[in-house]
């Protein structure tokens, strides 16, 4: 099946972005509305394609569109083609849907910013790049989108780059992403060397003929890429700092869509991971580590956005963990990704709404008791909260519970470990999210006298309300009757394999709910009483470590940066002495011969003629010799 509409999905926001950038100040008055309409129309196209797809039988739901042949060198042929299947449409709807809501929200949120038009141009650019990422039909096309969203993320984190630390945060995100990108480009190279093609369909077709070593190599490199983009261990450190960007950006890019690209990449490459058990195991381990890591950081953060960022990291850990569980896990990973897209975006917008009312104050210790003053924000945030900690029947319950269950039921001792980690993660999540709720919305007010908390305008709470509905209903809608699993089945090759289940679903669910209750209870017990406005310093070492993001920056600094600098110094020294010496020698030889040959260029036409005559004789002589 082919479709001619796919290109507009990408082209509309891309051209809109370029258009807004080029028009400059002239578009200030209407640029934000234009960008929002473009995003909405992209959603419209996505919905139209979705309905058409629903009408087709499940085996022929994928559609493609060949745009042009991009690179054609010898046998190496890459077409710029788009592929819309059950997996990509899920992302398309999430990106354009949540994207449009966040566009609307930003109209109000950014209304005081002089550069609002530029902000919307960047947002549109992000939408275009993200859509290209999920619509590309080959790793190379995906790579273009992958770099595009990286650029958009960089531009938006550093949107207020007049503050040096914000610019630094943008740079940090960019560099961490670059490390991951190296992984992706290496994966593409290995894939091309192994399969001779980089299109998803082509690789999938030839995957059975490839060696496990090559597949493991590709898998590990793809995982590296995913850790960079999705802020997974060990490349997770940039996400917290990325909160420097405007809050809508955090909601769209650093919660709902871009950071989940790693999950998409692994799910898309299911045919590689399913044949490379080692790589798959690494995926599980990374996911398990990160979900604990993020959750622990979340417990210690006083900055509301950083707490949410840590939670994002942890939730994506769940998704990565699920993708590592093989065919059964992909659908749950994507399902959690979608529900997470709703409730986390909703909570970020809620946090933005709080900040909007509190003069951009982000320290939760200076909030308190906001629930009465911002009822809508409190309710929408609360619904998101119930979803994330996994209280039935809210969205997170359905998706997270499935992941925990699948984790427990994977084979051997591995299952117990990762299941335990996932369960513990759920407990900690319940704890720190309850902490956020208590600190922000309940208790006594702790804010400064100058702050005048107020509810946000309709343009802001409207999107929050819609996302809250998603937080409530999306889980049930997706999971009832195994709907989403069978929807995604053709893409991820999962067929219902009934294997011995160690734990009955009801057991796992009960355990998970108990863990959540414990977490909530601890939080209530701890923060019921008054909360000091300044974080206490006489805390135990673990809290200190958690406050310092589990020493991730210290680790990077000590293990990567210092040795890196030392290595650089060493290399520079070597470079100057040995290599430059060699280069200079070559250079000197070249320049010397240059000067030598220049002497023949003496300006006398008679010498030139003689040279020609000499050349003629030389030619004759050579031809003579060659012919003999």
């Amino acid at each position, binding site marked *: 099946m082919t479709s001619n509409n796919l290109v507009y999905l990408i082209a509309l926001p891309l051209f809109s972005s370029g258009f807004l950038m080029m028009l400059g100040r002239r578009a200030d008055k209407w640029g934000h509305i234009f960008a929002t309409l473009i995003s909405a129309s992209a959603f419209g196209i996505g919905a139209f394609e979705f309905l058409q797809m629903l009408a087709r039988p499940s085996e022929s739901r994928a559609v493609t569109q060949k745009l042009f042949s991009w690179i054609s*060198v010898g046998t190496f042929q890459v077409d710029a083609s788009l592929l819309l299947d059950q997996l990509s449409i899920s992302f398309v709807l999430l990106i354009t849907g949540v994207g449009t809501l966040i566009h609307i929200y930003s109209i109000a949120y950014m209304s005081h910013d002089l550069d609002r038009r530029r902000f919307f141009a960047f947002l549109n650019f992000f939408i275009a790049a993200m859509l290209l990422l999920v619509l590309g039909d080959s790793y190379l096309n995906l790579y273009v989108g992958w770099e595009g969203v990286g650029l958009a993320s960089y531009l938006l984190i550093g949107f207020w780059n007049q503050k040096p630390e914000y610019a630094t945060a943008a740079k940090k995100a960019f560099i961490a992403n670059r490390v991951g990108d190296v992984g992706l480009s290496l994966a593409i190279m290995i894939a091309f060397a192994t399969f001779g093609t980089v299109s998803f369909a082509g690789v999938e077709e030839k995957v059975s003929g490839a060696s496990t070593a090559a597949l493991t190599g590709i898998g590990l490199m793809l995982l590296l890429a995913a850790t960079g983009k999705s802020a997974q261990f060990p490349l997770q450190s940039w996400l917290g700092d990325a909160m420097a960007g405007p809050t809508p950006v955090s909601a769209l890019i650093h919660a709902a869509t871009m950071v989940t690209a790693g999950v998409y990449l692994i799910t898309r490459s299911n045919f590689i991971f399913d044949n490379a058990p080692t790589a798959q195991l690494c995926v599980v381990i990374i996911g398990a580590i990160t979900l604990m890591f993020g959750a622990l950081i979340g417990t210690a953060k006083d900055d509301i956005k950083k707490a949410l960022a840590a939670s994002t990291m942890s939730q994506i850990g769940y998704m990565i963990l699920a993708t590592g569980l093989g065919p059964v896990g992909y659908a749950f990973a994507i399902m959690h990704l979608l529900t997470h897209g709703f409730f986390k975006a909703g909570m970020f917008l809620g946090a933005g709404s709080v900040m909007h009312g509190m003069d951009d104050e982000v320290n939760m210790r200076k909030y308190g008791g906001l629930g009465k003053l911002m009822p809508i924000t409190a309710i929408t945030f609360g619904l998101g909260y119930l979803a994330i900690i996994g209280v039935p029947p809210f969205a997170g319950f359905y998706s997270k519970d499935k992941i925990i269950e699948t984790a427990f039921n994977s084979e051997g001792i591995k299952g117990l470990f990762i299941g335990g980690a996932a369960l513990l993660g759920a407990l900690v999540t319940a704890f720190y999210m309850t902490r956020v709720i208590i600190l922000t919305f309940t208790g006594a007010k702790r804010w400064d006298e100058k702050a005048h908390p107020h509810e946000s305008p309709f343009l802001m709470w409207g999107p929050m309300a819609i996302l809250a509905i998603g937080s409530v209903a999306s889980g049930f809608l997706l999971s009832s009757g195994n709907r989403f699993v069978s929807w995604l089945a053709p893409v991820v090759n999962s067929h219902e394999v009934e294997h011995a289940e160690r734990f009955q679903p009801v057991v796992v669910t009960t355990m998970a709910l108990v863990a959540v209750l414990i977490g909530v209870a601890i939080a209530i017990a701890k923060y019921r009483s008054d909360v000091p406005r300044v974080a206490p310093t006489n805390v135990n070492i673990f809290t200190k470590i958690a406050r310092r993001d589990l020493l991730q920056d210290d680790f990077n600094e000590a293990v990567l940066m210092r040795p890196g600098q030392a290595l650089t110094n060493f290399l520079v020294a070597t470079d100057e002495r040995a290599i430059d010496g060699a280069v200079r020698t070559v250079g000197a030889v070249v320049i010397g011969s240059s000067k030598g040959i220049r002497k023949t260029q003496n300006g006398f036409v008679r010498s*030139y003629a003689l040279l020609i005559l000499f050349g003629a004789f030389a030619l004759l002589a050579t031809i003579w010799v060659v012919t003999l």
Partner: protein
Amino acid sequence: MSDTPVLQYSFLAPILIVLGGAVIGVLLEAFAAAKRRAVLQLTLTLGTLFIAFLSLLRIRNLTSAKAAMGSVMIDGPTILMQGTILLIAFFAVMIIGDVDNFTAQASAVPGSDEEKSALQAGRQQTEIFPLTLFAVAGMLLFPAANDLVTLFVALEVLSLPLYLMAGLSRHRRLFSQEAALKYFLLGAYASAFFLFGAAFLYGFSYSVTLSGIHAAVIGGTANNIFLLIGLTFISLGLLFKVGAVPFHAWTPDVYQGAPTPITGFMAAATKVAAFGAMLRIYYVTFAEANWNWRPILTVIAIATMLVGSIVAITQRDIKRMLAYSSIAHAGFLFTGVIALNKAGLAATLFYLLAYGFATIGAFGVITLVRDSSGEITDLNRWAGLGRRSPKIAALFSFFLFAFAGIPLTSGFIGKFAIFTAAYESGNIGVVVVGVLSSAIAAFFYIRVIVMMYFADDNGDSLTVVIPSPLTSIAIWVSGGVTLVLGVYPTPVLNAINTLATFIR
């Protein structure tokens, strides 16, 4: 009663239209009022080239037609090369149209009172336009020529106007006249060799047509000494035109001395024409004698690449540097010629187009960098240009990137294609030298960029003049073509691939 000859005017239309335009241009010189000549001539020249291009489009589907009793071959490569020449000439004329680059009165002694009065009277040497058209006509005929006599006539028709045009610089006139004289003397010398070679080939085959000579090459013994001498001397004439080592010595002097717009035109268009003729001769006529000429051409290719790249490093003058760069590029083009396969032919044709446009653009930019005494070509004085004229400096850097073969420019695709073709034909040595020379060459291109952007401003009086609208169009279009050919070359490559087959 013999049959009257048939010329097939429609096949020859592009050439005839250009010649007709040139003749009308001469009449304009004779009868139009001096003040209006420049505008009239410019309009006429651009119009002529445009109409010639349209008439070429009308015959674009001819892949094997002969005109003028078999003297002119209209096949795919002819169409492609004529198209390239016409396009390049069109934009080159836009830059030439800025007639202030040319002397007010060529016949006045440099520095004399007569020159001063001519300057004050605002006289202009508008003969440059018909001369350009005559040269273009010769260039159009050159790659299409199907016998040695036509080839020689075309060679002279394209060369003679260029000799004159090289001497018309407004500033540093003695230098320019010296360049013209050198070019003329050495060109005549090389033409003599060419003619001598043609005579030997006639002696070898009793025919002047390329197909006749080809038949003799197949039928006779390849060791025939007349063939070898003829082949050598014919090659010499062509090698001289493209500036191959050791027949390159004129190139730096002439490129530096000639008025800059003319240098650009000469560098871009002459290369297309000369390589066109060379491709036809080697691919059509002497393909079966390749055991004789390929080793020589390989040596020449290597020498040309190396000498061009190496000597360019020590140049202090931008035009001279680009002259050596053009020598190096001739070497790169040779690697396509000696590949002797279809890929080589297609790659060479693409490279010529890419290089042509980058050259027009680069020399167009050089015409803009001036002080009160005229163009500044001393590299040291270009320091800090990037800060004073960021747009123009960026554009120039882009052209240099194209010359250096950096990705996303046409130069990269061209080099990639041409080295691939050479590699496929088994000439790995040439490819290695080619890549090495590219690395050396990249050094001096980048050095100019470093000069423009990172060197300290020397507080020079040098300015970048506001280009005339036509010059701006020409340089920006050249930049655009260079970018498009670098980013999305597929349509052009496909078109070249479909058309690039020589017909005997």
